[in-house]
């Protein structure tokens, strides 16, 4: 029989700290923003935008806010946080699971956009690292450590991000691609054009789609260049929803050296591929074993951050 878990919804770092200490003292396990622990710590009420410094192109937010909600706030100043994973997750989920979407091609992932964090560790310690300025090399960058940590090292209660201006227009081109051997020449041709694309996805088999962002004039020039050199067609932006769906529904994620794209196309009957990143979202589970050295290192970090193993991954 499943035990009923207790749900706690802190409103501040101090609340979260107290809840974690109490759980630890009571010998209860805690899961962060997901089921699994005897106590579930939820960031539902930690969902404010604390600062949006438009002139600095930065913001400071709490982890419970959804990307769409944050976007609405940033849009008032024609800015955006360029994180576009599928499914409108919260900022906290983006960090814990190192989420990204098609625009990682140009703008990077959460780890590239995050400037600083405040975290609460399992023993209640509240600590900050990084800052809210775009350039900063003071001290260890714990924000990066928490990207992808799956909530095993502590709860992020505050995060600062670098923002970008919203583009004036967004459009999409598509090029037919069905034979594995056509992929390399196509990508080389595209690379030679040197277009600053916002995203580049391969909906395999079928087509390569490119996202063009900028002023109307500049965007049109890029579409024209792609049309002329590669026979690209201008298509509706809706096609990116297809990419999102495929990413969301993928059974596995495959990492590959971008030059090995050909082999990936041979082996995968269907996939969403980000060729420049070397990432394929595929229809089968992928087992990517970690080296013993890396497993050992991650273990030692957990040992330092949560020696009592209060947090369940």
């Amino acid at each position, binding site marked *: 029989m499943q035990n009923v878990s207790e749900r706690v919804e802190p409103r501040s770092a101090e609340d979260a700290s107290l809840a974690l200490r109490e759980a630890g003292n009571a010998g209860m396990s805690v899961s962060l923003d997901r089921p699994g622990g005897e106590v579930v710590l939820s960031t539902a009420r930690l969902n404010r935008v604390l600062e949006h410094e438009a002139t600095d192109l930065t913001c400071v937010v709490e982890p419970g806010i959804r990307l769409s909600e944050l976007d609405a706030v940033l849009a008032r100043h024609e800015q955006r946080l360029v994180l576009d994973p599928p499914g409108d997750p919260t900022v906290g989920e983006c960090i814990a699971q190192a989420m990204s979407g098609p625009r990682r091609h140009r703008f990077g992932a959460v780890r590239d956009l995050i400037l600083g*964090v405040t975290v609460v560790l399992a023993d209640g310690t509240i600590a900050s690292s990084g800052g809210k300025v*775009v350039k900063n090399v*003071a001290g260890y960058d714990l924000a990066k450590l928490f990207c992808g940590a799956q909530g095993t090292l502590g709860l992020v209660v505050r995060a600062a991000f670098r923002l970008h201006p919203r583009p004036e227009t967004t459009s999409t081109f598509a090029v037919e691609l069905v034979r594995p051997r056509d992929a390399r020449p196509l990508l080389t041709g595209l690379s030679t054009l040197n277009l600053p694309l916002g995203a580049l996805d391969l909906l395999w088999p079928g087509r390569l789609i490119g996202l063009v962002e900028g002023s109307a004039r500049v965007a049109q020039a890029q579409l024209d260049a792609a049309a002329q050199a590669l026979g690209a067609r201008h298509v509706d932006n809706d096609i990116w929803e297809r990419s999102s769906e495929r990413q969301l529904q993928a059974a596995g994620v495959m990492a590959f050296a971008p030059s090995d794209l050909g082999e990936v196309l041979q082996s995968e009957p269907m996939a969403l591929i980000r060729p420049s990143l070397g990432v394929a979202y595929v229809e089968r589970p992928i087992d990517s074993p970690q080296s013993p050295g890396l497993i050992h290192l991650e273990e030692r970090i957990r040992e330092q951050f949560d020696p009592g193993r209060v947090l369940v991954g």
Partner: protein
Amino acid sequence: MKRGERELCEAAVAALGREAVISELEQLRTYECDGLTGTRVVPALVILANSTQHVQEAVRLCNTYDVPFVARGAGTGLSGGALPVADGIVISLQRMNRILEIDLESERVVVEPGVTNLAVTQAVAGHGYYYAPDPSSQQVCTIGGNVAENSGGAHCLKYGFTVNHVTALDVVMPDGSLVQLGGKSLHTSGPDLLGTFIGSEGTLGIATQVTLRILRKPDSVCTLLAGFDSVDGAGEAVSDVIAAGVLASAMEIMDRLTLEAAEAAVSAGYPAVEALLLVELDGTSDQVEEETERVLEIFKRLGASEVRVAKSDAERALFWRGRKAAFAALGRVSPNYYVQDGVVPRSKLPAVLRRIGELSEEHGLPVGNVFHAGDGNLHPLVLYDASIPGDLAKAERLAEEILVACVEAGGALTGEHGIGTDKACSMPLMFSKDDLAVMARLRRAFDPDGRANPGKLFPTPRLCGEVPGPYREHPLEKAGRAERF
């Protein structure tokens, strides 16, 4: 040589060969400091590693003989990061300077850590590619040093820092084991240890192989200069460029003092103005054309004087020459100078610059300002004369007070030069005891014995006296109106 040191030396020679070991005092002196030349320590031994295995052997020796090690690239660091430890080993990576692989289809280059930053660009330039992070020291500094410091350059405003361009690292851990982080793919699982290692200043291990992302050279580049009658005016132009949605690849400001010194040194043809703004735009030709128009409009609206657009590569190089020579140029007008490296939110630039002016008056020492305006990274140069008793101490105090002003404005202790030994005692200005304690936990996970580059980054009683400077809560924070990071 002490007895333990002799044994260590013999063991090193036995393990690595005589040509890899330096133990003569005269030669050891070459390694006694980095770019922060005021602090010097002679190490027990220097090992010139030429492979990952060599580095592992050296680190194992340190474990056997219970001595610390300090990794060293080109020694251009400006915060004393590569300062040796007296009884320890310096592991020099400069002989590991091979480019191992150029994978153009992947747009990745695999290098040993001793390869210089510029050599990476040179190796791929013929194919139309370049390596984006461009510290001013790029002809000399090593990729390993860049990784340790998370170095940036004038163009990191648009393209980011080292951490955004490294996709994999081989790391020799402080116990001598080897761990691989990342790969040619950007997909990894688990905590971002690659990103955590980058910028850790040699305190978590030694990088012995680095995979870098390379970018296509932009088709079009435009460099502009504009004069303003105040630094505030130039700062306003920077804010307006950003507000217009233009992502410039570089925006640099020089004040009058710096400008005159630079002009005297390299004759870049700069106009005589209170502040000079240099803006660089890159991308497709249409994009650059359009952005140039927008920037010129802003210059016009703000009443900039002497607006110039570089018409050739030669002219662009000339525009940059003065900027790049600025530090050295101030060195010619003053017997000594100290380069501070602080960061403020861009919007706080005018206020902090005014504060720097006041501090300069108060202490009676000139301060030249040259900075990466786009990302709020200030490099105030405090000019002093070491031959005047008390001048150095005054300069140090002034530099420290500038840092306080940066942190109080919501900024950071360093934007690119790192903490090292130089700023270890200032860490409490920005971080609370708990913040530092959590960073120390991370260090223990990598290096439980504190063997990798001890005495750097963290304030210790030995380094800073019993009471490290107090962490100051910002008034806004006290009032619960703003949060610190």
